[in-house]
């Protein structure tokens, strides 16, 4: 039984990412539960330094998910919030044990597919020159490195083209992109150009935040690029 952890951004702006994730998990034979009481992990307030507000929202999250077996999330950033920062947020709190246990049960989508050895079961095709943008929190907070690329490599007709080296931030950073909008937008252009200079036509990412930020910058600046979430691309490839 897999519980869906639907980030607020997916819930309110990109519901199709959540639906596609559910379709993929269904394709791989998992029973899915979705608790409609869930809202958000609390990261926006936490990152803004408002820890009391973050704790309030996180308490709601813990309440929803505390009895789940396995939790899967289409965002490395939200997963990292629960895994790495809940213990800090609840360090002097009676919920600390619950939070630490919760952290062991939550997985980012690509991380989950790899840990469950599901890549072999992928049979599908997508034609395009695809570049993968690993979200910073997925890469550096969760240590997810080549997992998403392994999934993409299994898809027929898909040409994977990667810029050299570690992933570079797209500039989103949540509230950072409002407070420092121009820095954030310039960072997105830098990141997008790392892909366009290699002839990439589709950028795939594992985070709805990065996706939104790069997609809007790409639209505003007329880049000829398609931006997709990993779950969207996989659902398309598997024809779900």
């Amino acid at each position, binding site marked *: 039984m897999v519980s869906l952890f*639907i980030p607020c951004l*997916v*819930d*309110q*702006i*990109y*519901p199709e990412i*959540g*639906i596609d994730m*559910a379709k993929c998990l*269904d394709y791989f034979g998992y029973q*899915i539960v*979705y608790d*409609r*009481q*869930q*809202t*958000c992990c*609390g990261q*926006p*307030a*936490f*990152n*803004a*330094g*408002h*820890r009391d*507000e*973050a704790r*309030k*929202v996180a*308490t*709601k999250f813990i309440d929803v998910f505390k009895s789940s077996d396995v939790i899967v999330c289409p965002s490395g950033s939200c997963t990292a919030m629960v895994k790495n920062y809940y213990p800090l947020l609840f360090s002097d709190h009676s919920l600390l044990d619950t939070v630490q246990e919760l952290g062991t049960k939550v997985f980012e989508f690509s991380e989950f597919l790899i840990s469950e050895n599901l890549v072999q079961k992928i049979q599908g095709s997508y034609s395009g020159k695809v570049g993968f943008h690993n979200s*910073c*929190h997925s890469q*550096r*907070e969760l240590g997810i490195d080549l997992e998403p690329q392994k999934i993409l490599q299994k898809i027929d007709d898909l040409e994977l083209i990667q810029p050299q*080296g*570690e992933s*570079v*931030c797209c*500039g*989103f*950073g*949540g509230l*950072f*992109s409002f*407070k*420092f909008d*121009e*820095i*954030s*937008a*310039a*960072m997105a252009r*830098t990141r997008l150009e790392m892909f366009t200079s290699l002839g990439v036509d589709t950028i795939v990412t594992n985070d709805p935040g990065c996706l*939104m930020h790069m997609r*809007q910058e790409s*639209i*505003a600046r007329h880049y000829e690029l398609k931006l997709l979430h990993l779950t969207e691309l996989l659902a398309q490839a598997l024809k779900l």
Partner: protein
Amino acid sequence: MSEFTRFINQSRLFSRDEEHRLKILKAISTYDDKVDQMKISQFRDWQQARGYASKIKQYVLDHLPTLLEEFEEKISARGAEVLWARDKKEAQKYFLDIAKRHQAKRVVKSKSMTTEEIEFNELCEDNDIDVIESDLGELIVQLAGEKPYHIVTPAMHKSKAEIGHLFQESLGAPETDDAEELTMIAREHLRKTYVTSDIGVTGANFIVAHEGALVMTENEGNGRLTMSCPPVHIAIVGIEKVLPRLSDLSLFLPLLATSGTGQQVTGYNSIIKGPRQEGELDGPEKMYIILLDNGRSELYTKHEFRDILCCIRCGACLNACPVYRTIGGHTYHTPYQGPVGSVITPQFRGMNHWSHLSFASSLCAACSSVCPVHIDIHQLLLENRWEAHQEGKTGFSWNTGLKIWSWVMSSRGRLNTMSTLGHIVYRWFLPFLSRSKRKRIPKIPKRSFEKLWNDYEQQI
């Protein structure tokens, strides 16, 4: 103008400056290549080296007071005088006293961030003391009337052609954009000053407690001349720069050179154990070491911030930072820029005017992943934000906004109501926005995932 407004204005200018962006990216990508190569060729296991360095620095923090006293005792025994400066003012006073005692009119100075911290050049100007920068990068920014752009490479933002032009204008040199010729011009200009200066001022990369030594690493040899030619040498050093033993340098010198400039070791590495001793032919007659606190002790007492005192000022976090790469060093308006500057500046100078630096980060953690002594820099930015909020420095609109947000987000019913309302507002207001603004806002669907789930659930 407030520091925050200044920061916003500057960062906007630089975010739009395509030429600046490409220049910095090019400089940093050359650096990246060298560092990547050096990490592999010089270290059997870079990660393990980082871990070991971090352990040594943690040991230093655990024993900081005794190590500093040991350093003082050992180096004083060889004739150096150690002065403890609580803050910028005290450090400035010590310097002026020494300058007066030795009737100094001219000072030559090598690259040192602590001197930036205490505004040394301004102090000299106010007291009619000539100060000449002997580091090539520092000389360039001094001649241009600017501040260092980067803690390791102060003139990173200047092209060779710009430097050539600057030398032509301020030193009367023939115009050139050849690196070697430019270095020769600077050398000729500087050589005279080493012997005509009354005092040589330097910083230090490390101070060693057990052997009582000062360690300087550099690539031009100017630091060595600065401290050895004039009759008086003053070193201004942050109290966190201690290493326990000389043997620790076998790790820290290559570590610093790799992270700082992608070198195996820097061209010149000097270990100085005091002024000229009896029977020696060269070296300064007097040596003073000003140990600068300037807020470090206070950081030391804050458990969650103590780690930042492990910093060896290699500049790797600046180079890795996508914000620094976009807005450049001058936008920070502080001696220490980039991620490390954004952690320590609000701590040293107060949240009141500087907390914005901790918020000007996407928290991508590139800084933490390159730090050679394993400081979780991005987590310290989060700690700063929390401290800023506790001190009431996060502003009314953010405070209220996030209070309402957390109230909405702690109930599904309230979120659904807000979602419906939000969608109506979005539909109604979108036509009033300019085309470019509209493009920046994602299409907000009528039905959230929670609503769509009803349909989907029936399919499976």
